[in-house]
Every structure is written in C-alpha cells, then in structure tokens.
C-alpha cells in the first residue's frame, strides 16, 4: 500500500500559528535562512580540481530536517548533534504537482510559503550546524506529514514501496513526544527534567465503567515507562503531565 499525500501535512506553518522556540527541533521541521552546502563543481579553469559552491544563505536558503531524533540527538543528554542532515528546499518545479507521483527524490511541501508549493531535495541532503537552525524554523510536519516523509525517504533510498504500520505509529509517537516536550519547556522554561520524567514509570490506565467514566483509583502501573506507552496511552500520559505541571 502506498501513501496518499496527506491533506494536512503541517502541524505549524509560517502563516499559521507558528511553532515557538519551546518546541524542540525535530524531523520534518523546515527552516529559513540557514547555510546550505551544495555539491562540488569542476573548477572553471583548473582541470581536475573541484570547488565547493558558495554556501547558500538568506531568504532563498530553506531546508528540511530529515533525520530521526534517535539519529540527530544525544541519547544521553538529548541535545542536538553538532551537525544535522538537512535537505535543501526550493520552489516546486512547475511541471510537478499533486498527487505528487514519482520523483521520489523530492518531498513535496505544498503551500509552504505564501501559498506556493516547495519541494525538499532528498538527494542533496547536506550537513548544517545545529546552531544555525535555532530560531529559523518556519514549519513543522504533522503526524501525517511525517508518515509521508518516512515513505518518501524509504522510496528514495530503497525503493521500498509499502508503508508499514510502523511508519504511522512512529510518526504518532514522535509527534506526541515532541508535543509533550514543547509543553514542558513552555511551562518550565527549559527542557531540564523532561526526559527523566518521561522515563519514569507510567501510572497506569484507569479502568472504564459501562457509562464511559474512569473508575477513580483503578489505574495500576504496568511497569512500563511513560515513554514506552506514549502511543497507546497518550491521553493518560498527557493527564499525568498536566497533574505534574499544575
């Protein structure tokens, strides 16, 4: 089964409520005015010599964060790696559009800016210092958008045509974790303590009576961490965070 491109690929976009600095940078984020490095080119006068093009910066320098958090952050401190894999984003070719068939080296970003379609060039991914991304984000992908990105990445790299359930579940897990992380940082002023809290034991899911009401005091810890049950017990984990932060 292949993925139909989602109708709502964005969680935030520049012209919609913008993702604030409290939201951690993550896979699927789009940035503006960041230093992008292009492929080396033959030296115009010295045969056999290659030169790097001038790094692209400024208002035309857009890029998409393509790496999963597990590969772009420290597993211990959760700080961003010094360099991140960013796909350059350019305006969509005039001869390509919905339903975005083929051309798997491009990930469509419809109506990204000023109603114009853009594409991320997955075959031109380049390293960008993570410090250069701070404060430059203009859009975040939604869970559906992330799932579509996973599909494009797999198609471009492996020509793997299917969309395993894992893609959708992982997109939801990732979105939920980043949402919680953002909420924590907004409330606490820093992300300190968030991951420790997320790794604490989950308090359990309350039993539900026939009337559709939670039975108070019926939740039993399953021995799993909150992080391990983020997808299945999203509502309960959010409630635990609300209680913790209140």
């Amino acid at each position: 089964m292949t993925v139909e491109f989602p109708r709502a690929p964005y969680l935030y976009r520049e012209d919609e409520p913008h993702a604030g600095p409290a939201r951690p940078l993550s896979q699927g984020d789009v940035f503006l005015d960041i230093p992008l490095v292009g492929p080396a080119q033959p030296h115009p006068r010295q045969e056999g010599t290659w030169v790097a093009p001038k790094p692209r910066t400024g208002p035309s320098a857009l890029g998409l964060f393509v790496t999963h958090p597990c590969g772009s952050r420290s597993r211990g401190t959760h700080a961003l790696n010094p360099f991140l894999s960013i796909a350059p984003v350019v305006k969509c070719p005039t001869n390509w559009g919905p339903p975005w068939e083929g051309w798997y080296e491009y990930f469509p970003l419809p109506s990204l800016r000023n109603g114009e379609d853009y594409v991320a060039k997955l075959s031109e991914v380049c390293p960008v210092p993570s410090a250069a991304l701070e404060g430059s984000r203009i859009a975040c992908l939604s869970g559906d958008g992330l799932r579509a990105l996973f599909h494009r990445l797999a198609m471009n790299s492996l020509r793997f045509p299917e969309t395993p359930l894992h893609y959708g579940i992982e997109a939801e897990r990732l979105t939920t974790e980043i949402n919680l992380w953002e909420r924590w940082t907004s409330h606490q002023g820093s992300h300190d303590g968030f991951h420790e809290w997320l790794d604490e034991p989950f308090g359990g899911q309350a039993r539900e009576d026939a009337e559709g009401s939670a039975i108070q005091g019926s939740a039993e810890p399953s021995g799993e961490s909150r992080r391990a049950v983020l997808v299945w017990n999203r509502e309960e984990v959010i409630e635990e965070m609300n209680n913790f932060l209140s």
Partner: protein
Amino acid sequence: MAVKGVLSSYDDVDKLPPAIRRDGVRVVVRDHGKCLDVLTSPSSSYLLPDLADFSLVKGEAMHAGFGRVMLGGAAVRVDRLSDQEDVVGLKAVLAAPSVALQPLNLFGFPNSTQIDSVRAIGLMTSSAAIATSLAAHPLEPIKAMVVEEFPHTTVATVEETPSLEPLRPDAPVADIASRIATLTDLGDEALGHLFKVERETFCRWRTGVLVNPRLGNRRRLGLLLTLLEDLAGRDVSIKDWLLNHTTVGGLTAYQLLGQGRIDDVAYLASSIGEPTTARDPRVASGQERKPLVFGEDDVWEPQVLDDER
C-alpha cells in the same frame, strides 16, 4: 474428476452449479485463515477421511435448522445458501469472537436448541435420533484447493479469504469493535483487557448497546484496528500471532498490547515473515553511544579561493 465450480467469496455461493446431488456437497469456507466447516446429518457419525480435507455438507442439510448455532460458546451464524430444494451448502460465519474452536467438545444449538455434541471431528457421541443434528469443526488454513467431483459428491472450495470492506473513517464504535473481534478471534474478556474495561462493556461496545467509550479508548479502538487490518492484509493468522509469538523480551504480542506497547507490536509486525528482529535496546534506555574515531580524511578544510592566494 470434473471441475464443478470454484467459490471465490461468500458472494459467489449462489453461483454453485445447480442440480447438486442430494447426497452431499463438500464445502470449505475460509474465514480469515480459519477453515470452518459446518456439518449436518442425521447420521450418528461421519466418515473421518471425508472430513480431513473438506467440509461435508450433506444433502439433508436442507432439513437442518437454519439459524443461530453455538459452538463452544461462540456464536456462529449459519445461513442457507440456496432456497432451492437441492441445498448446496451452508455458510458459517463466526459472528462473535470465540475461544479456540477445538475439535473436541463442540456443541450444536440449531435454533437455540442443543441437539448434539461432538467428541471428535465429525464424530458424534450422543444419540443421533434427532434428524437436524449439526456439528462443526475448524480445519487448518487451506490454500487453494481443486474443485472436484467425486461419486455422489460435489466439491466446492473457497479459494480466498473473504475480504472485509474497509470501515469508513466515521464508522461507529460497534463496527470497529466488531471488526476487531472478527479479525482477532478473541473473546470479549480478552479484548476488554486491552482497553481496561469489563467483558460486558466490550461486548456492549461490539453490539452497539454502549456507544460511549472514553475519548482515549475511542482512539485506541481505531489504533488497534489499524494494526489488525495491516496484519490481515498480509494473511497473518492474527490470533495465533498475538497469542503464540513470543518476543525477545518473553512477552507475546498480546501481552505487549496489554501493557500499552503498541509501537513495539507494530515494529514486530513489520518483520513478520522475516527473521526476528529486535529494537536497539540502547535507544530505549537512553544509553549514550561510544563515539567512533575517524581518520584524518574526515576533515573539512576551509575553502581557499583563487583570489585569496
């Protein structure tokens, strides 16, 4: 052996060749990888070899009671396939999740009246005085089978698992819960455990008596259905996989679901048919990776332009 016809889905049952001999029609009905046979006969026993491969529906099925049948506590809907005098077979559909249908101790309840019990496949133990006796047994999943004509017997097979129509995005709770029950073949208690509700509550969701699960459980119903439909699409025996497949951590997929680890289950499901894989435990534990040491070739020198030389 003459080919008489092939059933490709339940919908094709009416296309069975007419004028079936009254003395018997063999029908195998596959339902999500499980072959469910419905047998009916006034006889006290069946010839087991005849039942080893195919279901046998005797011509006298037309005399049997059509209606609701209970098998080992599981409801099975039995429908007449033909209104003609020559009944060509019966359709048996698991109408409710059941415990595993074992060949032993199955009971027939045509029209809510217990009339028979079965000790082994097709072998009845109680008095066979009642003409409308019914028995059923499951067989191992069978792939495609040939349709053959035997003396005094017509064989018809269902080659493919009947496909279930995808549920609409706005499907009610009852449809989702029913589909989950059908796909998993698990009982209300086992399914209720996953959602932290009583058996009766899940049963009422499934039957539409209750339509008010909490928001979280509504989402979880959809989430689990997505997982199950993914498995069903790959012709996986879902119940067996959920209950029998033991993961690296020693838990079954069902137990993992019970602990809320659907992402791990989805990860496992993605490797069905492949060698068992496990997620990198260091990711979950937050264990820092030991930095790799690269050589001198892993250095980017500052660009020196011609003009600067």
